[in-house]
């Protein structure tokens, strides 16, 4: 029986896509950004606000200083400005990395009303002494009523945030999100392709009933490739600046932006190699995807073991290629966003996320189709098998995350640890939520046999994990491309929903073109009688 892609389902999907797009447009139009700020301790007991300002942004240094001063005076504080780039102008060694900034300043706030910060806070501290006790006078000022900024530092932060907000004319958030979604959904297609090749090469019988679902998901690859190519073309044309190394200035020894570390990586981080490899990735993935699909349909008609043996050989060949290409792909597409940073485990970590997202999507789609009465041949044992994979790959993902993180944390060497410092700085809560959710939920809740067979458990856990593995990709991309300017708002959610709608539409469309159950597969009979 074929899947009936009814107009009702189509209509609902169009509604989802439209809603996503609408949210995205709202997000896109209201897209605001602000300057990169960070609180630094200047010297003992004194703090300053580090403000970095990119060239592309619609300010001038003079105007920024003016606006802050005016606003600060109104709020009752004074601010000292010290220009860090000016200070380090001659220090050629240290400033290379920071030459992208128009200015980089340290703002030190002082209270105008009283002699110093301390007296100012104390006044407020007294007011709250009843609530907080006398020993925490200063902190009492901090965590008092929301929206009221008590310390000069907080007032300053608020001012810089207001003054430093600007329209994201470079649309860094939009481009980066496009990469996140294009990569995430392409990854699901790729994960399914890997899974099907794995099953062919290992002569697995258990997954035969899922074959058509896998093939349908693989059907997304060509479209997913288009979105990726849009992002890459945008990067190559300098419409976006996701890939820092694509800026020719960093490779130019004469330029003030010259970056020796990136320049040394030129053979790998260059436009021509990037596009050469892209051609290889897309060619290999799409050709194998087409071949598997073609032979699968052919097997339905012809039968015999010839096609089966061919799939076995092609599956093994694909795995070998995938072993190399998946790592290289993740380096070029994602890891090179954090251009200086490197990690040998990276490719395998990204791959585990891809594989897991695909597995989760397979399960969710299976339950939906079962609900429509299509997959009666998939019994609890088949679900259990796929559930086990979801469980196991979650474990694998956590294991790889931990291995990479713990080793970098433990060794604590500067060239590596920057990666996590960035993520701890501005992405702390989202990073740890993601890790906790993606580890704790599957490990605890999917441990029992019953849970791996239960529809409701898998749908709930699967949906949560699906979203949080999207967030995982988000954290891979964003810290290197939009720095601290990230948010999850209308723009992000809208684009995710729109992509999800398009993805499901394509998958269902592919699904409707062939019967839901393969015919003539040598392991079909064994698999249909599969009970554990």
């Amino acid at each position, binding site marked *: 029986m074929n899947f009936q892609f009814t107009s009702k389902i189509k209509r609902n999907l169009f509604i989802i896509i439209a809603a996503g797009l609408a949210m995205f447009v709202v997000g896109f139009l209201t897209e605001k950004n602000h300057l990169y700020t960070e609180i630094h301790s200047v010297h003992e007991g004194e703090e300053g606000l580090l403000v970095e300002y990119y060239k592309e942004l619609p300010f001038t240094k003079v105007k920024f200083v003016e606006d802050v001063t005016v606003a600060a005076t109104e709020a009752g504080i004074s601010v000292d400005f010290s220009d860090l780039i000016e200070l380090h102008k001659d220090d050629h060694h240290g400033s290379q990395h920071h030459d992208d900034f128009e200015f980089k300043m340290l703002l030190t706030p002082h209270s105008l009303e009283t002699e110093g910060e301390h007296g100012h806070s104390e006044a407020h501290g007294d007011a709250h002494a009843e609530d907080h006790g006398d020993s925490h006078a200063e902190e009492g000022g901090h965590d008092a009523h929301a929206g009221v900024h008590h310390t000069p530092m907080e007032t300053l932060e608020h001012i810089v945030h207001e003054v430093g907000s600007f329209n994201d004319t470079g649309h860094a958030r939009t481009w980066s999100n496009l990469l996140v979604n294009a990569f995430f959904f392409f990854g699901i297609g790729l994960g399914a392709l890997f899974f099907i090749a794995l099953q062919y090469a290992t002569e697995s019988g258990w997954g035969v009933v899922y074959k058509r679902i896998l093939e349908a998901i693989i059907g997304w690859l060509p479209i997913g490739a288009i979105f990726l190519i849009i992002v890459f073309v945008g990067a190559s044309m300098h419409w976006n600046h996701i890939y820092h190394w694509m800026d020719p200035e960093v490779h130019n020894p004469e330029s003030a932006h010259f970056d020796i570390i990136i320049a040394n990586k030129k053979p790998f981080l260059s436009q021509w190699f990037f596009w050469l490899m892209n051609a290889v990735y897309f060619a290999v993935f799409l050709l194998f995807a087409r071949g598997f699909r073609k032979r699968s349909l052919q097997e339905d008609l012809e039968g015999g073991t010839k096609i089966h043996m061919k799939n076995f050989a092609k599956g093994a060949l694909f795995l070998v290629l995938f072993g190399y290409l998946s790592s290289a792909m993740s380096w070029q597409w994602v890891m090179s966003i954090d251009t200086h940073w490197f990690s040998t485990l990276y490719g395998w970590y990204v791959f585990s996320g891809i594989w897991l997202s695909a597995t989760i999507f397979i399960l969710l789609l299976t339950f939906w189709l079962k609900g429509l009465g299509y997959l009666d041949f998939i019994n609890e044992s088949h679900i259990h098998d796929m559930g086990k994979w979801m469980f196991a790959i979650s474990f694998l993902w956590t294991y790889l995350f*931990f291995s990479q*993180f*713990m080793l970098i*944390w*433990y060794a*604590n060497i500067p060239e590596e640890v920057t990666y996590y410092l960035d993520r701890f700085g501005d992405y702390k809560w989202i990073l740890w939520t993601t890790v906790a959710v993606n580890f704790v939920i599957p490990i605890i809740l999917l*441990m*029992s*046999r019953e849970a791996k067979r239960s529809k409701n458990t898998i749908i709930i856990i699967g949906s949560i994990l699906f979203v949080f593995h999207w967030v995982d990709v988000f954290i891979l991309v964003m810290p290197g491309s939009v720095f601290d300017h990230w948010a999850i708002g209308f723009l992000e959610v809208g684009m995710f929903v729109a992509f999800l709608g398009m993805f499901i539409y394509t998958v269902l469309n592919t699904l409707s073109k062939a019967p839901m159950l393969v015919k003539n597969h040598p392991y079909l009979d064994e698999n249909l009688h599969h009970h554990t």
Partner: protein
Amino acid sequence: MADKIIYAMYDDDDKLLDGARMLVSKGIHVNEVFSPMPIHGLDDVIGVRHTRLGIASFLYGLTGLMLATLGMKYFMIDDWMMNIGGKPSFSYLENLPAFIPITFEFTVLCAAHGMAITYLLRNKTLPGMPASNPDPRTTDDMFVMEIRTAENTKYSADELQSMVKSTAIVELDEKTV
């Protein structure tokens, strides 16, 4: 009435399974089966309850997890702080990544051994325990079904015997307890 045990011997697991299905469908309670290997699907037929050893293992694991956490918190944070590799042990959370490997190992250790010991105790299979299979061939190639007359009072011993005989048995033995 004296309790008689009927031992029905089969030379094949599927024959025993078919036989057991037939007998159970007639309301006979099969007390025990002795076999040289696990017979799949038998448990449901003769009504062996599903074991809860898996849950026990989970609980042992949780205990291990807790002990490891508390232990390391005490050793490294409370009792004797050490600054190792520039990472002073001021709080458990700050040092958490370094504690994860041992926490994991200890959890596994407790889960595995706790379960194994419980398993041996529950089975009463311990060093020095005597074997209780009715025929030495049941650990080789024979499958024996044990039916007690006292548990099947709605049939007489002879009726039981003849019903057992109608299954594909190879031998029948009786023992009065």
